[in-house]
């Protein structure tokens, strides 16, 4: 099978039971996407398939054939961060940071579809992503900040 991962075409031959999460982490070493519950309960493995946030642990690798997958690795790096990464850092929206990649990908999907979300819309979009350190108040602020920066044109477009 062939699929697009972060803009590059990847050929893979996963077993029928291999999940997208296993493919990303174990076969492709894209370990930014986290394995926490491995059964669709926590959102830590959130990635985008054709722009839609999905749980990679509940998605079979074969269900992604011919689709475009984006992971946390498609965003920026520490030298050139994506506006959401910069906003998460500015608002201290990551403590241990383990849920952060999933939170960021959920937020990317939100802002790509809604450039000016209300707090209620932010909460609704982010409510599938658990955090145990308690960064939720700062996540809302970070997403709001990123949306505002993007709208003001002071940041790159939010497409990651």
């Amino acid at each position, binding site marked *: 099978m062939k699929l697009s991962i972060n803009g590059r075409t990847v050929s893979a031959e996963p077993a029928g039971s291999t999940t997208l999460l296993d493919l990303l982490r174990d076969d492709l070493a894209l370990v930014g996407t986290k394995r926490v519950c491995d059964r669709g309960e926590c959102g830590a493995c959130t990635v985008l398939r054709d722009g839609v946030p999905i749980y990679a642990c509940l998605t079979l690798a074969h269900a992604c054939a011919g689709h475009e997958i984006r992971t946390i690795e498609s965003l920026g790096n520490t030298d050139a961060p994506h506006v959401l990464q910069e906003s998460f850092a500015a608002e201290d929206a990551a*403590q241990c*940071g*383990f849920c952060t990649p999933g939170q960021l990908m959920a937020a990317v999907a939100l802002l790509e579809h809604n450039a000016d979300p209300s707090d209620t819309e932010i909460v*609704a979009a982010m409510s599938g992503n658990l955090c*145990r350190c*308690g*960064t939720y108040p700062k996540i809302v602020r970070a997403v709001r900040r990123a949306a505002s920066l993007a709208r003001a044109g002071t940041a790159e477009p939010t497409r990651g």
Partner: protein
Amino acid sequence: MAESTNGAAKPRFVTTTVEVEGRTEERVVEVPAFEPTPWEADAALTHVGARARRVDALLKSTGRPGYTTDLQRAQLAHAVVVRATVPRGRLTALDISAARAVDGVLDVLVHADVPARTRMFSADITYVGQPLAAICATTREAAEHAASLVRATVEPLPHAVTVEAALRGDAVRPGLQNNLMQGAPRTNTRGDIARGLAEAEVTITREVRTPCVLHSALEPHAAAAEWDGDHLTVWESTQGIYRVRDNLAKALGVPLTSVRVICEAMGGGFGAKNYAGPHTYIAALFAKRLGRPVSCVIDRLGEQIDTGNRPSSWQRITLGATRDGTLTAIQLEATVPLGIGGWEGGPGEIFHELYTCPNVSTHETFAFVNTAAMAAFRAPGHAEGAVGLEIAMNALAKELGIDPLVLREKNLATHDQKKNRPYTGNRLAECYAEGARRMGWSTREQVRAASKRATPHLRRGFGVAAQVWSTGGGPPSYATVRVNTDGSADVLAGSQDLGTGTRTILAQVAAEALGHSLDRVRAVIGDTASGPYAGNSWGSMTVASLTPAVRMAAEDARRALLEAAAGLLGVAPDALETREGRVVVRGTERSLAFGEVTAKLGNVMIQGHGSRGPNPQDAGIVTTGAQFAEVEVDVETGVVKVLRIVAVHDAGRIVNPTLAESQLEGGIIQGLGFALFEERRLDAKLGLPLNIGLHDYKIPTIADMPVIDGHFLDGADSKANHVGARGIAEPAIIPTAPAIAGAVADALGVEVNELPITPWRVLAALGG
């Protein structure tokens, strides 16, 4: 540079006491060669107290800060644990032949293969989830598949998973005289409880239950191990790299200095990651046998059933007071099912601490039961005890017709009653006042009435609760600060950053004491091979334990730098000062950048050594605080919504307000889960855990968030240590659940004294 000028020779090593997780330990400590002059509350500081950005914030936003579970090694093999599925029995046979035959399986470990000191894989099964064997394969999927093919033959034995069953005497594990910790209940008494009750004009009694709750760190317990000859390197998701090293060396019977433990980044601990565990030993043993690196990551089921918990509690509280609200008696009887092991992290301690009262008696029964052992969980004991004590205080206030806040203020603890000594600082009275102002406590009656008129089924209520927790930290803790040849500086310490921000605040303190710019100072932590000893990140003690050592090391390095610069500038060292990375001749424009000084030195190293001195023995060191909750309860559905939490704490000097607020919010949110959602459920008859994932075990989500107004009193505790800082991690969680419980009772007019306060418990309390 100030230092003590005590002319008499001080003993270099002395014995001191430190408090960890509510327990007091005696330790030999080294008295530092010099102690910097304390930074008083009005000290003019640049980096300490600043809202500096978390140094690894952007790195974390890439998902790759270096978690143990993300470790990439060539030939890395994967180990999984085979677990017991019954609460008690005797393992008579373990058939691993089918597992061995699975493609990709490399090795299997059973009881006969492991050193006795690992205490793994016993044939005496004492709880569901107990490890029975481990399997290693080239892929995690192969190892998991093989584990499912292991066939255990077990002769079942009677079990006890409740205190009641344990007290009936059914043995829960071999070798116990009875099922009680230390063989008997623990009783602590101050004064004369009978007299206190006799003197009371009003007494109230309440029964309160708190649930067993799970740490639920998102990164699971995990280790990876690799041998190079006799030298072992272990990556571990841990709160204590040095303790893991010690545990490993003892369990495996190898020299301490042959073991290196690394924790570059970790995904949460909350008290459950203080020691090496079976996963650590399994990774190390397989790696040795196979001659390749091995990773052992506990799956979510294992996290739910075998990595510790905050045990449940039953508490019966009796309070006695005179009509004016003066407490005369505080009495607690409590039972705690510890699980198959653990320690006496019970609710009783806070009953002796939070309020002034001459007569206090706590009687706690700690029972062993056939569930996984408890572990320290953010303010162990105090979080549970505060629920019982504060619910009882609210009941007493109602009985007396006194405002619950006024009752608390009237009975404020003015000194450390357990040891009859003052506190270095305790500004709880100010916390109450500031919190009440922020919450609008005085107008709560009007808000409640207006809300009831507007929406009769939604009842508004307000609650208050307080906390006290020992946060003095203490020795031993060491740090090295070196100024590199390019003028940048490193702080080396054997600590680790759980997500609290340790890496950031160590750099802030070093930059302050060196007179450097923060972006040129880097904390190198999380590796026993590079950092001198630091203790576990537990007991809210990292800031108070380690930052004084870092400050001292930085001042030591600064002194060396000034002496080197003095020769270059042709002035005496005491004519020099440091500012933002430059050595400046005081009162002039002449200066040299640190890098210009070090460039002249070649490979001469500028490094400073720092150690943490003993705490004052004549005063208690605590963080105190008060939290206020505003809730809205739907009396038709029973759903409780927390609208607002106001939290005001006195934690001494705050090294970084942004990080401290984050930690405060984290404690409050975990406290909210404890109050409303979280409960590890068991089937008592079968001894089986029922909610074994994050779907059934509910932790708070972003949709459950109240408005959180967290605030720290300005100031510094310069009597506690020369940085003036205390801890906040555990204090943050203690008052949240009792404040919410108080607010629910205020809203309903009836109490719900069993946590979590679920809709059906609310409806039951309303008689629905």
